[in-house]
């Protein structure tokens, strides 16, 4: 009858966003008069469970089976569903990463439980959990209540605070067996190619984004460049955006216009058909601020716009704006930040 929190692991370490779910679960556990159980699958699950204890889990259920080493939906969902059926938790909560989104949805379907996703606020009581979540790309907020015996909730990242970790807290760990054998799992991972050094837009505290304006690089493209415009924009991301991002420890974003023009891969796209982000600081350079771009970044705490067109809609959304050429402003801003931040 506990509250389950799914703690995500990758290659033996916890995904730190999971601690936000432990923070949010406290409200729910208190309302239901129960405790919190971290559910941890994969390599080093026991060590991750200890860490989960520091962040507020009272108990943990761990499974370190070889079939669970790299996340796959089938074996993960089979085990989570089995645990939910056996233990009837009051709720199952996780931060809405791509993994947790599908895992919780699957297990909610298996157990015919209600599911609400992408909560930005949450309250509990009287046998139910009520959440506020954005809909229509954040243009409206929807309030939804789930009251099935087990209530599944995913949380939008960076919307709930983790508890301060305390190494004095210990956790009561139970080890369980996997629910599926390798032979029964239909999906096989043939290979994996890691993208190194990639800062994840979803959990970045600072994002620096470039848009179509990146093409107006004053540098000349080399004569052998296949496409001068793309070369210029790419050079800009590499030598103007990236140094600023590195100085700030930020992730690099982009508008769809920049992605569609081939300046930067799709993984960087922010907006309605890209990533939804809510960093503390979002710097938009050479981005006009179309409504579909806003849909993905309007909840950033502080927005800074750099655009040479003083009438660009992005300035209406921005807390601070500099009207000017990004190719002049950003390098100077980077130097100033290096000085002031002592880098």
């Amino acid at each position, binding site marked *: 009858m506990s509250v389950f929190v799914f703690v995500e692991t*990758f290659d033996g370490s916890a995904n730190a966003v999971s601690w936000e779910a432990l923070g949010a679960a406290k409200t729910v556990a208190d309302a239901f008069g129960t405790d919190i159980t971290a559910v941890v699958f994969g390599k080093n699950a026991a060590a991750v469970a200890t860490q989960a204890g520091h962040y507020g889990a009272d108990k943990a259920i761990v499974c370190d089976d070889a079939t669970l080493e790299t*996340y796959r*939906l*089938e074996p993960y969902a089979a085990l989570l569903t089995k645990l939910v059926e056996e233990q009837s938790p009051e709720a199952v909560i996780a931060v809405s*990463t*791509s*993994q947790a*989104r599908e895992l919780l*949805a*699957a297990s*909610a*379907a*298996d157990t*015919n*439980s*209600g*599911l*609400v*996703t992408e909560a930005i606020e949450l309250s509990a009581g009287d046998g139910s959990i*009520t959440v506020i979540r954005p*809909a*229509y*790309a954040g*243009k*409206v*907020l*929807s*309030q*939804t209540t*789930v009251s099935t015996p087990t209530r599944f909730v995913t949380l939008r990242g960076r919307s709930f605070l983790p508890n301060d970790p305390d190494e004095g807290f210990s956790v009561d760990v139970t080890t369980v067996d996997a629910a599926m054998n390798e032979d029964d799992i*239909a*999906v*096989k*991972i*043939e290979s*994996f*190619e*890691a*993208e190194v050094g*990639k800062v*994840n837009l*979803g959990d970045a505290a600072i994002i620096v984004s470039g848009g179509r304006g990146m093409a107006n690089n004053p540098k000349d493209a080399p004569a052998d460049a296949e496409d001068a415009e793309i070369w210029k924009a790419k050079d800009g991301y590499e030598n103007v955006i990236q140094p600023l991002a590195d100085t*700030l420890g930020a992730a690099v974003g982009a508008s769809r216009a920049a992605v569609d023009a081939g300046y930067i891969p*799709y*993984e960087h796209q922010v907006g309605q058909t890209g990533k939804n982000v809510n960093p503390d600081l979002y710097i938009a350079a050479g981005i006009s601020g179309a409504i*579909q771009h806003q849909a993905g970044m309007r909840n950033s*705490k*502080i927005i800074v716009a750099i655009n040479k067109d*003083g009438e660009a809609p992005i*300035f209406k*959304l*921005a*807390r*601070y704006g500099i009207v*000017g050429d990004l190719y002049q*402003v950003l390098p100077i*801003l980077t*130097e*100033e*930040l290096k000085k002031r931040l002592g880098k």
Partner: protein
Amino acid sequence: MHIVTFTRSTPDTAAKVEVDGNGAVSWGDAATVVNPWDEYSLEEAIRQATNVKGDTTVIAVGGDLHNDSLKHSLAMGVKNAVRVNADGLDMTDSLQWASLAAAAVNNIDDCQLVIFGKEHVDVGSDQVTYQTARKLGWTMLSYVSEILELDAEGGTIKVEKTVEQGKQILTAKLPVVISVLKGINEPRYPSFIGIRKASKATIPEWTPADLGIELPASSITHDAYNNPPPRDITSEIIEGETIEEKAAQLVDKLLEEKVL
């Protein structure tokens, strides 16, 4: 082999969407469009069906608002369209939605592959994708950035999947449900002839009774929609003689805001 794909009509992404005096979500007289993520799944369904010489059906779950996106799908080149609806269906209840979706897929012969777009821009959720797969009891492959091989005879599929940390190559036994990412293909525009043909099509409607199921009890209650609180921002354009001066001022302000 029969390939099934899903679509829905969503308000144009540029539309002003707000909650009206009756507490309902309204987008005025703005048009609806095919859910933008579905353009890629529709295109992929057509291409894969062409490769395996199979049939295609597009399904919408919900009210007749969704006929527009079904007709768009037909105009693109999907062979058949059907809409599934039920009295008392709550479109925001993903378990009801997925139960209808799965029953509809089961009602189509020889379907081995279901293709969804990444998510729905209106609800901002992709949960129905996974829940449909579970209700079918099929394997789910999400965030597919490329279908490398679809072997209808051998009953296998090989895909590239994008995960937060990189790319995986996965193989699985059919039948599977997949969701595809933008960039998997260049969606085609419907042809003129396609649009004309589709505009005349009548779209059959299946009810739970036709599918031999009952609509499951609701699993959530939708209480209210609200407009987000106005963003309380005063915008400030940083002025200064030189760029250096502006940059220094901006850094001062950002330090004050404690976001660095």
